[in-house]
Structure formats: C-alpha cells, structure tokens
C-alpha cells in the first residue's frame, strides 16, 4: 500500500515535470548569444576545419582534458575496487568465429586510423577512433583470442596514462604562449593531431580496460 503511494507520487511528479518543461520550452524566444558566429570566425586559427573538433580540442579543450582525467580516474577506481583476481581462462569460441575475428580486427584498425585522420576536417576524431580500437579488443576477447587483463604491469600502466600525460604536458607547455592550451595558430593543427594520436592509443587501452579488467573470474 505504502509502496503504491510512493510509485503514484513519483510518477505524478515525473509527468508534471515533463508537462511544465515542455510548455516552458515551447514559449522560448531565440537565444541572446549565438556561438556559431565566433566558432566559424576563428576556425582558420584553430588548426582544424571541422567545427566540432575545433570546439572539442581547441576552444573547449580544457573540458576534454578534464574528461580524459575522469576516464582514467574511473579505471583507477575500478582497479582499486576489483583488486587482485585471477584472470578468467579465455573461452575459445567456434573456429569460424575466431577466423572472423582475425579478419575483422585489421579492418577495424584501418577504420580507426581513418577516423583519427578524418577528425580534422569531418566527423570523427580520437574518441571514435579509440572506441573502435577498444571494440576490436573486446571482440578479440569474446572470440577467445585475447585473455582478460589482470592487474596492469608497468608497461600497460604507462600506456593507459600516456595519452592524458601527453595532453597535460602540451597544455602546460603552451602556458608559454600566454595561457593554458593556447595553441599558436600555425602549429595548432600539428599539436592537435599529436594530442589526438596519444589520446587514441590511451583511450583505446582505457575503454578496452574498462571491459577486460572486469572480465575475470569472480570470487576467490
């Protein structure tokens, strides 16, 4: 009975919220500020020609820096939570699936490299590329060609942290230009590509790690 009342209360609240929110949205006047104007006005100085990449890695690159910190931090937290545990024996899948995995993986690597390169002037970039690489690793794990990871050794830890460390170092070095992450316009394209390459490797390792560090035997 009490439970029913709680459910009814929450549902009513949610419906009322949606109603008022929608009504308030529909009566809205145009926004006072249109950021599309400065975004395209400074595009030539940003080092890339795709506006979203310009916002992501140049205008609001600081958000992205902190966001990579969040990702790395989540991985550290997961490692601290699961602790030491034996690695699950990788379950060998059907040979056909394994062959398929062997064939698809190089293709996914090619797609990732393309996405990374394309990010400068059209949709794509480090995140998508890293995610595709991570998906390849997950696929290899699922068909039994890649074992789950146990607690990371030094080399893997360096790989996981390298992209973020590189980004941080570039951000700090650019203080010389006058402020954090202030790219000199003529070198911006190169620096952004450098950061994106580092991020792709580390993002792939971190995203794959979110999966592979968890994919081990429970209990013990």
């Amino acid at each position, binding site marked *: 009975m009490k439970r029913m009342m709680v459910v009814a209360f929450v549902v009513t609240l949610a419906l009322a919220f949606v109603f008022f929110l929608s009504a308030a949205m529909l009566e809205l006047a145009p926004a006072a500020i249109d950021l599309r104007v400065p975004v395209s006005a400074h595009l030539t100085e940003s080092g890339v020609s795709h506006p979203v990449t310009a916002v992501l890695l140049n205008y*609001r690159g600081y958000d992205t820096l902190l966001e990579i910190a969040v990702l790395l931090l989540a991985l550290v937290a997961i490692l601290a939570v699961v602790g030491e545990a034996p690695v699950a024996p990788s379950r060998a899948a059907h040979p056909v699936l394994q062959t398929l995995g062997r064939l698809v993986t190089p293709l996914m690597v090619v797609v990732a490299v393309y996405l990374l390169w394309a990010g400068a002037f059209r949709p794509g970039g480090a995140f998508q590329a890293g995610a595709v690489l991570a998906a390849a690793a997950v696929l290899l794990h699922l068909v039994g060609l890649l074992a789950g990871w146990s607690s990371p050794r030094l080399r893997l830890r360096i790989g996981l942290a390298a992209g973020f*460390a590189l980004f*941080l170092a570039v951000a700090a070095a650019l203080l010389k230009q006058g*402020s954090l992450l202030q790219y000199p316009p003529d070198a911006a394209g190169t620096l952004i590509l450098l950061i994106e390459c580092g991020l792709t490797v580390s993002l792939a390792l971190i995203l794959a790690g979110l999966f592979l560090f968890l994919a081990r035997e429970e209990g013990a």
Partner: protein
Amino acid sequence: MNEPLIDPLVWLILLPLAWATLAFVLGPGRGGWLAIAGLVAQCWLAFNLAQQVSAGVAVVHAVGGWGAPLGIDLAVDGLSAAMLLLTQTVALPLAIYARSYFKASDPAGAGFWPLTGFLIAGMNALFVSADLFNLYVTLELVGLAAVGLVAAGGGAQQVAAALRYLFATLVGSGAYLLGVALIYGVYGTVSIATLLPLVTNEVPRLVWIASALIVSGLILKTALFPFHFWLPPAHGGAPAPVSALLSALVVKASFYLILRLWLGPLQSVLPAFGWLLALLGAAAIFWGSWQAIRAVKLKRLIAYSTVAQLGYLFLIFPLLAAPAALQAAVMQAFAHGLAKAGMFAAAGVLIKATGQDTVAGLAGAVERLPVTMFAFALSGITLMGLPPSSGFLAKWQIIQAALAQGHWIIVVVVLAGGLLAAVYVFRVLRLGFLSTPENVTFTPVSRVLEWSAFALAAASVLLGLRGVELIQLLGART
C-alpha cells in the same frame, strides 16, 4: 597580471593531475611522498593566490586564449581563494596522516594516491571555473573519485555504501547537467560572466525550472537533509583518511557551487528558495545531531555530526543580503573542515588502537592516548561553537546577521544546535575518561597519526584568533 608560466591558479589544477597520474604509473600504494611534495607546493600556491586576491588583483585566466563565451574562463575571487586555501591546508596534513595509516600492502590504500590527486584536482578546478558546463565535468571528477575512495578494497558494507553514494552523486550531477542544458538553450552560453548581465529579473519560466534542477542536484550532492541518506554509510564506512577528506572537503564543493550561483548569475532567481533551504538546514541540524547522539559506532556518530554541521551552511541563505552571512558561511566551512578532518583522523587512531569502531569501546582512551583524545576534544569545541574556536566565530556571525535582519528563529536554531553538539561530543569524552576494562588491550599507534590529527584539531580552534585575515580575503571580492 601573472607571468603565465607560474600562474598559481593554473598550477593548482595541473599539479595534482600530474602527481595523480605519476602515482598511478608508479603502481598500487605508491606515490605518497610525491603527493605530499605536491601538496606542499599547492599550499604555497594557494597562499600566494590568496595574497594576490587580498591585494585586490583580479585573477582571471582565459584558457586557450579565447576568452568567454567561446572559450572557458577561470576566475578567482575572495570566496574561491578561501576555498582553495581550505582544500590545500586540510589535504596536506591528511596526506601525511594517510601515508602512515595505509600499510604498504593494504588493498584499501591501493588506489588512494591517484584517486586523492584526481579528487583534489577536481575540487581546485571546481573552485576556479567560471563556466557552467566545465563545472559539470569537475563535479563528475570529484564525485567519481570520492566514490572510488569509499569503495577501494572494501567489504560488502563499504561497496554497498559506495553504490548508494554513486547513484546519489550521479543523479545530482544529472540534474545539474539538465539545468545547464536548459540555460544553454535559453541564453546560448554557459559562461558565468556572460550570463551575469543576461539573467535579469524577468526570466523565462525555463530558467526557473533550470534553477530548481541545479539547486536540487547540488543539495543532493551536499547531503542536505532529507537527501543525506547516502552520507552516513559512505563517510562512516570508508577508511579514516578517506572519511576525513570527504566530510571536510568534498561536500563543501557542491555547497560552494550553490553559493557561487546564488551570488552570481542566478541571483535574481535563487533567493526565492532561501527560506526553503534554511528550513532544510535547520531540520538537518536537529536530525543529524539526534542521530549522532544515538549512534553506536564512533565513525557513524561523526558522520551524522557532519549532516548536522552542513545544516548551518544553509541557514545563511535567507541572510545573504548582509555581508556577515557570506563570512559566516566560509568561516563555518573552515571550522567544520578543519575540525571534522581532525575528528575523523582521531577516530582512525582510536579504531586502530582499540581494534573496534564503537563508542562504547573507547573506555580508558584518555589514559592511553591522551594526544588523540585531546584532539577529539578540541575538534568538539569547534563543533559546539565554544570561544575562541573558529566554530564560535562562524556561529557568532550567523547570529549577528540574523539579529540584524530580525530573524530570531535562526538564532534559536543555532543555539539549540550547539547544545545538541555538546551532548554527542561529551558522550564520547565521558567514555574516554572511564578506566580501562580489564580485558581490553590498546595496540600502539604511530605518533605521526596522533599528531597530524592533533594539528588539524588545534588549527580549527586557533583559526578563531586569526579570523580577521579570512574575512579581509572575502571582502576583496572584485
């Protein structure tokens, strides 16, 4: 204007990020000295920054050189300088404490240094950010790091507490994010400085909804009654250095953000919620104190005391017309931050020594661990608000502001809260003075632990004598 390469504002964010990453690369449980060295430098930076702000220098840093609204601005005024100062000065003794608290192979300490580094970087970034969406990212940085610290290496109770905390913090930042999305929709910007002239007295209804979402998200993260449900298990169940960090600093971060928006871009909207927040604050004082009086476990008692002490922070909202109210809020944040860090640190010593986390198990503690019990008592003095402690100064200023505006009801709440705090503090101290039962043995505990707890507790009392500097810093709002 600062020489950009040594701008303290930027390095307060970069430095903890750097030592957190290095500590992760070094491996589980390593990096303690690195963190302490980093925090020493950060303390110096924070003092340096506070001096600049006191001298009336406007400290703004346009990340990427673009400037708002295209880029993200970082800005420091007296309020944020004070919060930065509090964070670094509480974190440094706690880092020294934690280094001897966690044994080399302790699974609870495995991720402590990198997680703490990210936590402090997130808080520092939050205190200086002048961009609503960037603030969302810093909120997530702080929230996830705090959850990781609660869960690390723990048993079922701790993991359950961490999950409860995680959902609370995610719902909180989700509501905040939706609020920011609505603000962006209405004004086309998320920069605080750009929003300031745009949000006038006549705002669209959507801004009201956005403000309500932002404030509810943030009070959920600050654990204001009745959204405090996640705090006692998380703060009471975590290892002592983590409890201290969370209770002293993390909950203040989201409170700071409410205050920042209240005094800044949402100043024409938020004051409508003033008495509601004060009412919840008063309820928090009574409910938290009552639960602390009844608590069986020592760290539960201290965690419920945090619920109560956070209530004072919200009493100031209807009074913000007077400058004393802002001073009271910051003084209370300092008083509670130092005192609660000292108290949880002392509790960690007592638990290590007695091998149990119950209030009843403290019998004889005064005889065996006089320094630690003295630290506990000093923290207690600040929480009760006795002179000359900083807690007294904070409560005195709330009372002054309330009387000046004729709100005597707030005075009653403050005085009653002080009495209730005395009940739960003396409950612990009285047991400590009993003689040790025959069958109980005390394990010897490192001096570093005892004295770092003492330093924090003593600082909370002594700050009361140097409150003027802090008030001057706040007065320097530009």
